[in-house]
């Protein structure tokens, strides 16, 4: 440990002008500006489903997926800012739980209501790569945004960033990918969201750590 005045001298001598990082709201706007056209392109390339089930349950699911994506993206860019309140970081988790609870609730209601075929589980491998494809550009954009400045809560930022990308991808997926039974949707699509969020978080942290300059605060050499 060095003397405080010596440390201050070293830090002052090392000072260089910095370009201010975008505010969380601006960073979110940048992410949306890239994500929305990329998802539109994927939907266009894959082809919009001919018959969209525009029932209230579907619209509610889509609204929750979209809200989770936006709130998680905001949570990711806020996580690296030391002066952001903790509730902003907890919000993506709450949204994800709400989304999952609504989906499970819908499945339970349909089962109790005796709707046929609700609990039929089919294999739907196609939705995993489709979701990974749709989430690719949003993920890359998020990594680049998180790279703009050193970040503090790295794990939280990566987890929220991955959740944002997969929730956005799930939103797009349901517009171009035909659904099977509700249980298939719950297991395969929501399962893919969870698996891709966790793996995306791990990969994102790994990528961030290996880019030049690292990802975390690190004392300057003295």
């Amino acid at each position, binding site marked *: *440990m060095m003397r405080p005045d010596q440390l201050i001298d070293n830090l002052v001598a090392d000072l260089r002008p*910095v370009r201010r990082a975008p505010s969380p709201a601006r960073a979110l706007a940048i992410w949306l500006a890239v994500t929305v056209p990329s998802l539109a392109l994927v939907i266009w390339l894959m082809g919009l489903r001919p018959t969209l089930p525009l029932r209230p349950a579907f619209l509610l699911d889509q609204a929750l997926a979209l809200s989770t994506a936006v709130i998680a993206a905001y949570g990711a860019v806020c996580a690296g800012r*030391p002066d952001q309140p903790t509730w902003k970081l907890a919000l993506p988790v709450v949204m994800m739980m709400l989304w999952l609870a609504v989906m499970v609730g819908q499945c339970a209601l349909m089962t109790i209501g005796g709707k046929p075929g609700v609990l039929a589980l089919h294999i739907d491998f196609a939705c995993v790569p489709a979701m990974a494809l749709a989430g690719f550009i949003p993920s890359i954009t998020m990594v680049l945004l998180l790279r703009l400045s050193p970040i503090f809560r*790295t794990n939280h930022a990566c987890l929220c960033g991955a959740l944002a990308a997969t929730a956005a991808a799930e939103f797009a997926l349901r517009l171009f990918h035909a659904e099977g039974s509700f249980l298939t949707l719950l297991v395969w699509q929501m399962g893919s969201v969870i698996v891709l969020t966790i793996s995306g978080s791990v990969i994102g942290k790994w990528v961030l*750590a*290996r880019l030049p300059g690292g990802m975390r*605060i690190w004392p300057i050499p003295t």
Partner: protein
Amino acid sequence: MSASWLGVKRKIVADDQTEWVAWLIAAQQGDRRAYAALLTAAVPWLRRRARGRWPQMSGADIEDIVQETLFALHRSLDLYQPPRPVAPFLFGIMKLRGADVRRQRVRHAMREANLDDLPVTSPAMATNAIQEAALDHAAMREAMATLSQRDREILDMMKMREMSLQEASAHSGLSIATLKVGTFRAIKRLRRAMGVDDAP
């Protein structure tokens, strides 16, 4: 929302000097005088806040947290968004770095053994001339000063802070292989600088 939390929040806002905002904005533009003024004003304030937040910590640990906060502020100058108050920004950095320091202390404590119960004449405490020389901090510091900046950084991460290879890699952006080779070479150079002859 608890009354005590509100009290803390109000205190932070009250403590925040308006000139700190001007100093930090100027520091972002590279003004060294404003930066020095900000850091000088911030040190006693951070020390007070750290003591209030972690009353059980020793003076040395508090000083460690304050210095870590200054380092972190230095690397995060671009994150400040004017005209937001500076105090919550600094306090936020201190909370996060303080938590890191505390975690590190706990990790180290788990690897340490208490030798208080050993008699001073115990052979377990015996050292020889080479070990004493190696433990001579002054000589070590002098030898460290002769090393390159990169060697010092690597030794600081791997030996002083006892980071794992993964942690050091995440912190510095260097690959694990580079860190391994770098540590080996830095130790070799340090030993040479301290006059220790390695067997061929």
